[in-house]
């Protein structure tokens, strides 16, 4: 596999991406090369021919690498890198756990009461549906990463981008509903000035209830996001270390 090591070293130097995206592209290309090499060998080709075919298909000048650069350089990918592209240390993991417990403890009474959902109206269910989807993907990923231990490089980040959007969506929707309700409230109060107090309260209750639900659910989904991303980043770091060590041995 000497040829692969040389190609990967060259690719690492030339990729127009910041870390850790560069390491990820490297891992994906390495996995593709290896998978194609194994396939060609199983088909009865010689080692040299299998290597040549793999390099022709997934070499650094191929469209596959260009596509990977596009994927890792996209807005969503950059957002993912900024929010949780790394593996967090023990201090941060501990901090997140304590923060999550306090926030859940503070928010729980309102949710147990369920009156907040009644006040929020149908918008709360739309907001909750996104959060539930994010948590569902999070649970599937936790099962795959922690229990089934499926650490295939190309599967590691599968679903994480969707999880990020489903995590952020409740917060944006919550703010949108809140602003619409605030706008309605101004109109109602202006038209009924003598009863402004009671009407203002009634109009703004829905917006604030939706916002509180949206933010609490975003925080819960964020915790799942943090756990899954941290695990994926740690696996990737370990894989990259192994890959670089192999490359060092080859040199």
């Amino acid at each position, binding site marked *: 596999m000497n040829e692969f090591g040389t190609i990967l070293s060259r690719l690492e130097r030339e990729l127009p991406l910041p*870390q850790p995206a560069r390491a990820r592209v490297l891992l994906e290309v390495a996995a593709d090369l290896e998978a194609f090499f194994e396939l060609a060998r199983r088909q009865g080709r010689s080692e040299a021919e299998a290597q040549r075919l793999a390099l022709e298909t997934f070499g650094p000048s191929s469209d596959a690498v260009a596509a990977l650069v596009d994927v890792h350089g996209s807005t969503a990918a950059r957002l993912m890198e900024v929010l949780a592209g790394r593996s967090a240390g023990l201090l941060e993991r501990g901090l997140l756990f304590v923060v999550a417990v306090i926030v859940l403890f503070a928010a729980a009474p309102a949710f147990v009461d369920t009156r907040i959902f009644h006040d929020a109206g149908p918008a709360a269910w739309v907001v909750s549906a996104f959060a539930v989807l994010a948590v569902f993907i999070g649970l599937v990923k936790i099962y795959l990463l922690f229990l089934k231990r499926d650490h295939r490089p190309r599967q590691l980040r599968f679903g994480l981008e969707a999880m990020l959007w489903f995590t952020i969506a409740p917060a944006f929707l919550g703010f949108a509903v809140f602003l619409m309700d605030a706008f309605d409230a101004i109109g109602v109060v202006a038209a009924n000035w003598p009863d402004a107090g009671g009407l203002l*309260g009634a109009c703004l209750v829905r917006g604030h209830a939706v916002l*509180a639900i949206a933010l609490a659910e975003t925080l819960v989904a964020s915790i799942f996001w943090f756990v899954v991303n941290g695990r994926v980043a740690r696996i990737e770091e370990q894989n990259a270390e192994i890959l670089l060590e192999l490359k060092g041995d080859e040199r």
Partner: protein
Amino acid sequence: MQLFMMGGVFMFPLTLIALALVPITIRLVWKLTNNTLEAGRIGEISLQALPFWGVVSLLIGFLGQASGIYKGLGAIAEFGVVNPEAVYIGLRESMVTTMYGLEICIVAMFVWGMLRIWHTWRTRQAMAATA
């Protein structure tokens, strides 16, 4: 301390994050001061801890505000009469968590920006020296 008590239970996680950002930043600076390029790359990745915790603080701050105002407005809607003092206290309490969350976020983002500029400058220096 008085401001802290006004904010209610959401002030505890925000204060914890604010306190934890100090050792996190010190650790980041320590990582970034390592001169090798490889260590620099690790520091570059670790820098993302600051915007992450900034965003979490902001979310908790807004959650505190929404939750506080929801409770206050619920009481107004229920009784239909506005007690200006009660409204003032409710709004003041809910604003404290938002202000606190925003302050933590702004400080975290500012430190992140400064460290990024410093790190980029150092990396360029190290690359120029290597070349």
